[in-house]
């Protein structure tokens, strides 16, 4: 399969849409539940302010009982199996088993996408280096023998190499994908930091299955490139 520019763009578009779909799914799944709870919070907050400070403690107690029936306590810094967690953003909050299952599925998909993105970036880099090398060498030398960088026009050819590899479209694409990879890796780290056992398990299993699905390509990519180019 020859990786033309169109196929490369198609791969990138697929990845971006899958990531966007995952986040959109998360937002849609929790929008209804979280909007109700935030409104409850605001109502009780206003009631507290109105009644003065002496009954503050009682009202805070009632506040907790009414809105957070099963979600008590703040962030626990040890492994726990609860169902109330904040997932990265204030609007994403799981309150029941259904929400937690949805969050686990979304984080599982995100971990698979992360592994796939790593392998995809490496594939793109291999392809870019092959085509870049061919272009530079065939452009700079006339005969077939001068495969090494010629000393006579080392300045020119050296500049061709550097200019080729900083300002090419493929390098920009690699930079953007690198930023996406860094963001996803930090998100997975923060999800793991919720210390929720189910979310941590979904991160680990997602990474494992992602490597299983995409990791075999790392060994093969180099060999396939050598034979058909």
């Amino acid at each position, binding site marked *: 399969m020859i990786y033309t520019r169109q196929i490369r763009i198609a791969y990138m578009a697929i990845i971006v849409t899958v990531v966007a779909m995952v986040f959109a799914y998360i937002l849609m799944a929790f929008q209804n539940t979280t909007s109700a709870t935030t409104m409850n919070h605001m109502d009780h907050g206003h009631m507290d302010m109105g009644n003065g400070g002496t009954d503050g403690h009682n009202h805070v107690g009632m506040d907790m009982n009414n809105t957070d029936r099963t979600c008590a306590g*703040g*962030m626990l*810094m040890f492994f726990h199996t609860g169902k109330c*967690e*904040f*997932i*990265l*953003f*204030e609007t*994403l909050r799981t309150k029941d088993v259904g929400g937690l299952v949805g969050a686990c599925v979304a984080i599982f998909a995100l971990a698979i996408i992360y592994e796939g993105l*790593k392998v995809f*970036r*490496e594939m793109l*880099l*291999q392809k*870019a*280096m*092959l085509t*870049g*090398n*061919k272009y530079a*060498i065939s452009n700079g030398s006339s005969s*077939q*023998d001068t*495969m*090494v*960088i*010629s*000393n*006579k026009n*080392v300045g020119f050819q*050296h500049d061709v*190499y*550097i200019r080729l*590899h*900083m300002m090419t479209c493929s*390098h*920009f694409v*690699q*930079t*953007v994908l*690198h*930023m996406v990879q*860094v*963001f996803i890796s*930090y998100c997975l*780290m*923060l999800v793991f*930091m*919720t210390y929720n056992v189910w979310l941590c398990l979904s991160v680990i299993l997602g990474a494992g299955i992602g490597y299983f699905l995409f990791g075999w390509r*790392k060994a093969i990519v*180099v060999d396939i*490139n*050598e034979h058909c*180019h």
Partner: protein
Amino acid sequence: MEAKPMSEYFYFSTTVKNFMFEDLSFHGSAGVVCVCLIIFSFTVLLEGTKSLIFYLRLRQNQNPLTYGKTETSIQTERSPLFSALMIPSSVSEIKQKRLKFHIGGYLLHSVDLLLGYLLMLAVMSYDAYILIAVILGSGVGYFVFGAINTRNQIKFQALQMSVYDRYDSQAGLTNSDASTNDASTNGSRYGSNGNTCDKTAR
């Protein structure tokens, strides 16, 4: 006072309390800009460290016959005898060279780990501005150092190929046979590509 994190979700705020040390807090937009600039430079430093580690690995796996060849003197007709003279002759010299490479790799690895964990703790403060600074810093760092990585890899592959091209021509194979494929094919055929392939995509 129990150690609870300051926040459980991303927030945009111009006040960062107890950033990573106990009484380190920033107020106002100037403080946030300073913190973000510092974090940005740390991220670029991290990418630079990874690039240095990659260059060290390339040097470590270099063909001894290419010692002493720099970019400006690649095509000079260096006789194999002179190249062979640059190879350390005694086992103790070889051991010293390997030890130096190992110590250099260890130092760079610890700097890499230190910067990586510092940045992880900075992002763990859940401040959205700091996350944006980290992402932008990694983008700029990869843009600069990723290009340098690719240039170094191609340079070392060309060095490797120059040695084996000469040997092939001396052994009777013509140059056109050895150079019909491109650089990475030859590099992988002679086994030099395997060490550097998996380092480029970090």
